[in-house]
């Protein structure tokens, strides 16, 4: 028998966290007398900031190491997971774990009666508004907490690692037991509060497991791309046959690769107040992923399918309140904001301000020690059209 754990992490920012959880599982399972190993698979290579990636850990009570590695060692992805860990709840909107595989449901690999374990602030039902349906029962567990995002290739030692181990023990003691987790942490760190953090997470998680019924969740809107055979596409490195060539004004007017959008990278998205826009072009010019589609009225639509949420547009926009980054889980689709604005400007402004709320984020500083998105200033609510006034007056 093999128990498979999949750790979905945000590329670079959680790389070490994912790896440490994998190696901890191996150490803990080993002290329980089991055979185990862990491996990582990078996604959009070279791995980039925030892109969803996977680490795996495999545990078996009865197979030899050779047999276990033969089953699991040299595969790109796993077929099914007993536990799928999600280290950032915004990944419940789907992941592109490998380029060209399309946007996949976060619970795609969770087997029947398996568990999707999410580090989350949102309750189960709100998470299920984004998660695809399964034809069978599985469990959804949450571990209360923020996504632990570290800086470039470092680890943020905020006890997330220990708490996730405790939560895994809670949802599937057949992988690791809480006693073994505690013993491992105590022996390794000589630090009582690390073992305690695991135990607390274990106890809390036991009460935060929901049985998800067959059909519960959403109809998955994304298709799996069908890639051409070797003789079905142009030879010689011109290898994006799916991309038609061309450019038109308006939403989705620029040609892009439908099979590899990378939009699942984002944790926040830019909300644009088109009525405040001064058409300075900076968002369009500076966007590293060319997400802004020029329109015939001189404004720039945002293609949220390909936006990776890097915050650059919000940083360069000279007009206060014109582009504001908002938590990705507040949005249920990627439809064109410019079209919504054209349909009914007043309604769009009201909608945008509701999404923005009153708390603004400080843009992240990616340093050697940490990646922080912190709460910034609070702005007064504003739900009416600007009607020619520049929002600078708000500042």
């Amino acid at each position: 028998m093999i128990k498979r754990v999949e750790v979905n992490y945000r590329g670079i920012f959680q790389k070490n966290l994912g790896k440490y959880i994998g190696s901890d599982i191996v150490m803990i399972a080993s002290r329980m007398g089991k055979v185990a190993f862990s491996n990582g698979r990078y996604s959009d290579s070279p791995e980039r900031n925030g892109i969803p990636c996977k680490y795996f850990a495999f545990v078996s009570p009865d197979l030899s190491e050779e047999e276990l590695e033969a089953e699991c060692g040299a595969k790109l992805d796993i077929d099914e997971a007993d536990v799928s860990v999600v280290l950032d709840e915004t990944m419940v909107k789907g992941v592109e774990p490998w380029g060209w595989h399309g946007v996949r449901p976060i619970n795609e690999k969770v087997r029947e009666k398996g568990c999707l374990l999410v580090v989350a602030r949102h309750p189960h039902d709100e998470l299920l508004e984004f998660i695809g349906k399964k034809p069978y029962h599985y469990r959804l567990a949450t571990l209360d907490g923020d996504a632990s995002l570290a800086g470039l290739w470092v680890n943020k030692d905020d006890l997330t690692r220990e708490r996730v181990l405790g939560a895994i023990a809670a949802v599937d003691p057949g992988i690791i037991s809480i006693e073994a987790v505690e013993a491992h942490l105590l022996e390794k760190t000589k630090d009582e509060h690390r073992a305690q953090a695991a135990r607390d997470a274990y106890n809390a998680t036991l009460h935060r497991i929901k049985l998800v019924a067959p059909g519960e969740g959403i109809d998955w809107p994304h298709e799996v791309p069908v890639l051409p055979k070797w003789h079905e596409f142009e030879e010689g490195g011109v290898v994006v046959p799916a991309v038609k060539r061309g450019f038109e004004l308006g939403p989705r007017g620029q040609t892009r690769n439908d099979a590899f959008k990378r939009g699942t990278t984002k944790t926040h998205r830019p909300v644009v107040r088109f009525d405040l826009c001064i058409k300075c072009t900076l968002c369009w010019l500076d966007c590293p992923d060319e997400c802004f589609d020029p329109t015939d009225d001189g404004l720039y639509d945002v293609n949220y399918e390909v936006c990776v949420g890097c915050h650059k547009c919000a940083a360069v926009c000279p007009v206060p309140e014109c582009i504001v980054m908002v938590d990705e889980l507040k949005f249920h689709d990627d439809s064109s904001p410019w079209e919504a604005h054209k349909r009914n400007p007043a309604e769009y402004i009201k909608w945008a301000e509701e999404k923005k709320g009153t708390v603004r984020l400080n843009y992240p500083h990616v340093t050697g020690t940490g990646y922080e998105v912190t709460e910034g200033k609070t702005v007064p609510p504003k739900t009416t059209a600007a009607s020619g006034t520049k929002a600078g007056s708000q500042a």
Partner: protein
Amino acid sequence: MATVLQEPKIWAKELLLNGCQAVAQGVKLADVDVIAAYPIRPYTEVMDALSKIIADGELDSEYIVADSEHSQFEIVKHASSVGARAFAGSSGTGWMYGFEALVVTATDRLSPLFLVGNRALDDPGAFGVEHNDALSIRDMGWLLCWASTAQEALEHVLIGYRIAEDNRVRMPMALAMDGAFLTHSQHMVKLPTQEAVRRFLPPYDLGKRVMHPDNPVSIAPQVNEDWVMELRRQNWEAARRAKDVVAQAYKEYNEIFGSRYTTPYFDEFMTEDAEVVLIGLGAVAMPARTAVRRLREKGKKVGYVNLRWFRPFPSEELRAALGRIKAVGVIDRDFAHGSPDSGGIVVHDIRSCLYPLTNRPAIANFIGGLGGRDISIDDCIRMFEVTSQAPNRAPGDELVTWIGLRE
């Protein structure tokens, strides 16, 4: 009669040229659009000759002196992607320094032509010929052939572009030439007329793959495990298709310029009834052929095969030519330390190609001429003697004999 009337239209003039200058004349006749240059002996004289040709107004071409071989090769790769016929060249470690650009030129399936003036890799002061530099590209999706005279060098610039740019192939072409022995040896070289070249070599046409503002394409986008197998398979197919394209190119070359090449892939010398044959690349053909003549005078049934094309490798053709031979001696002006039976590079391909034959010849291998050392007529006679003993060798006996070594 017809030949006499045609002669002036096909051949413009005859000049005394060394190998480098002959290649430069070939580049001129091919009307190359972009040339990237960076000096290293023995290739340097090619760029010297080209700069003079352009300065004299004989060729309208972008001539870019790069800051290194890596940049040099990148320049021609990119030029090739916009539909420009492009040329570069190098030698020895300069060639190796640009290797990253060389491998992606093949995976991007672009068709510049490169001259490799073979040079040792690169013990200080080693300027002489050794084939390891050009052979390093053999597995990377390239066309690779050796010229053994200055005339052949000029003609293979034209033949090379013709094959490399063919839509069925689209692979970069490396034309190799023995450093010093060919690059710096002067011979009378016949220059074809521009009109005759135009008949043989059509313009470079990338079709819908051409990168142009009116035809925006994405070349070499990021690929991963979902694409690399398919891309390699395409390249594999192109290398296989190249076999037919090579044959067709020589056929048409012979039709226009007279039957200069009896076979595309290699020249056979006195092999009809031969029992012992040597085979090698490049300038070693000169002493080897003389050795054949001298041994024939003594009644020995010997012959020489001058292997021209190494990629695509002429498996079927060599099986047909060597299958009836008793013993084949392979001359490697290169090394492959630690390889099977410690042989050179060429012997492995030839031995592997002959393996499926029921009555395959016995094989001997010679490593010699490294770093530009002579391989003399007497050396060749000795190689024939050793090769003639190869059928008597027991399994496990040494495959390799070093030639011209102080020992």
